[in-house]
């Protein structure tokens, strides 16, 4: 089941989706022994921004049929806080660390990338480009030209593998993936949550979520994710981290078959902290039965 991804040797293809697993809190809840059963072959941090963010006011969650809408608002300690207090703890995880970062301009992202490039504990950098452009209100990642410029600015600043996490809220996701590849991305990951709205029970159009709109994840969007991964795989040569509603080894297999090299598990971990390990085992069994191999 081992797999090479952007030069990283990973023992299996299952990682976590950014922002869906707090390895530090997991040690608190399950004890330090959690590291011994760590379900992922690499750990993706939640999104880190330059300045600290408190996140959105509650409520932050709304359950939908076979899915979840969240409006967490990317709470994090900011780059300095993360480097000082989280990184040392994450560096002791038994797997490589991929750090996810976001900013709403190339200018603002560069210091983040520079700082991470300096840290040997960081194995790879993931760019979250589902960040609204202040001028247009649309995600930076929803326009191929804009995304290309963004990635081109980042690329020269680090020799670490650079993964671009695409936004699904776009007309032409494969075209955008191509732009990321052309600008020097080593991999793309997708999909991020779909923009969604949860009505407050009282009605009259009020939003349930403190952050007004949110993003939908979970099995409800798996088929949409598979379509996008498949379309992107047909257009780019760089590896793909596929995700969206993965809940079983069969689902993971479908993403690999659609062209992904790694598969990320997000919401399913909320139902079971060891879902990633179960999915890994189911995948191994499926692959053994069908004789399929990992690329």
């Amino acid at each position: 089941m081992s797999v090479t991804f952007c030069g990283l040797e990973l023992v299996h293809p299952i990682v976590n989706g950014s922002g869906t697993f707090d390895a530090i809190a997991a040690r608190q809840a399950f004890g330090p022994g959690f590291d011994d059963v760590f379900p992922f072959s690499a750990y993706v941090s939640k999104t880190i921004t330059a300045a600290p963010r408190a996140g959105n006011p509650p409520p932050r969650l709304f359950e939908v049929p076979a899915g979840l809408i969240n409006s967490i608002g990317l709470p994090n300690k900011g780059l300095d806080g993360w480097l000082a207090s989280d990184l040392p703890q994450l560096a002791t995880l038994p797997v490589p660390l991929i750090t996810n970062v976001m900013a709403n301009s190339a200018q603002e992202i560069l210091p983040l990338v520079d700082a991470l490039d300096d840290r040997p504990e960081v194995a790879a950098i993931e760019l979250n480009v589902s960040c609204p452009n202040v001028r247009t209100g649309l995600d930076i990642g929803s326009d191929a030209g804009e995304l290309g410029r963004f990635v081109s600015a980042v690329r020269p600043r680090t020799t670490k593998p650079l993964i671009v996490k695409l936004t699904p809220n776009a007309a032409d996701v494969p075209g955008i993936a191509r732009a990321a590849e052309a600008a020097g991305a080593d991999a793309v990951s997708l999909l991020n949550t779909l923009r969604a709205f949860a009505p407050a029970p009282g009605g009259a159009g009020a939003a349930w979520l403190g952050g007004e709109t949110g993003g939908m994840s979970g099995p409800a969007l798996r088929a949409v994710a598979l379509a996008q991964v498949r379309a992107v795989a047909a257009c780019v040569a760089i590896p793909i981290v596929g995700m969206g509603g993965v809940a079983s080894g069969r689902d993971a297999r479908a993403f690999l078959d659609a062209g992904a090299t790694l598969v990320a598990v997000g919401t399913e971990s909320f139902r079971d902290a060891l879902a990633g390990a179960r999915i890994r085992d189911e995948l191994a069994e499926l692959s053994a039965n069908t004789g399929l191999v990992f690329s």
Partner: protein
Amino acid sequence: MPVAGTPRTTAPPGRRLLTVGPRAEYGAYIVLSAADLDGPLPQPGQFYMLAAGERWGGGEDERPYLPRAFSVLRVGEHGLEFMLERVGPGTTRLAELAPGDGLWVTGPLGQGFTAPEDERRAVLCGGGVGTAPLALLQDGLRVAERPAPVLLGFRDHAHALGAALIPGSRVATDDGSVGHHGLVTELLADELDDNDHAVVYACGPPAMLEAVRALCAAREVPCQLALEAGMACGFGACFGCVVPAADGSYLRVCVDGPVIGGERLDTCLVAGHAA
């Protein structure tokens, strides 16, 4: 019962499939049991994430999908006991589980109650299903030979039958059908009027907890509040279960709580948390 600073009991990693044991009804409430032979003993105020072993889903609006949080009520002869009220698709599904059915559990989770720090007496104050964590707490206090008054508030007679879960408790009901006609916080004020060298342990709906918090703040009585919040994971992964802290940050109820000192909170009233 643990003194402040005692490490929390951690959960075995991941969810585990238990078998439902006997269930009982107390008016509007159901008590569900499940033997947890491999799990540790929970501390009072800790909780578990529960989901039915089969058919978790397919209820109202195709839900539930995520597991649901429940305080441990007690650890009895049939194992873990949970007290629940049917308020939506998750609790409805759990309430229909029969002995022998499967139950997914993750837990015990979170930070529970800690023993009174000095010679203060404990006063327990619960509303509705907020009764649950006070039962195990009272058991712990009794073992520690620190018996404490338990004050419970309920909506009506059918709910007040839940008071039988904590023998010796005093009851208030909104409709006056049982015990004091009014709010349980009125009983709490009386109790503190008698003797306010106390620590208040409270669990209940946000409005009640907020009243307890304000009342204790005004009297400079420390309080430990067991909060509720909509949760997806219960172990700190989703950052969804936050309440506003006094310092302007947000606390995750599942890992920073559910039991949080009143002084650390800005308010217990969070839009969208069951009133």
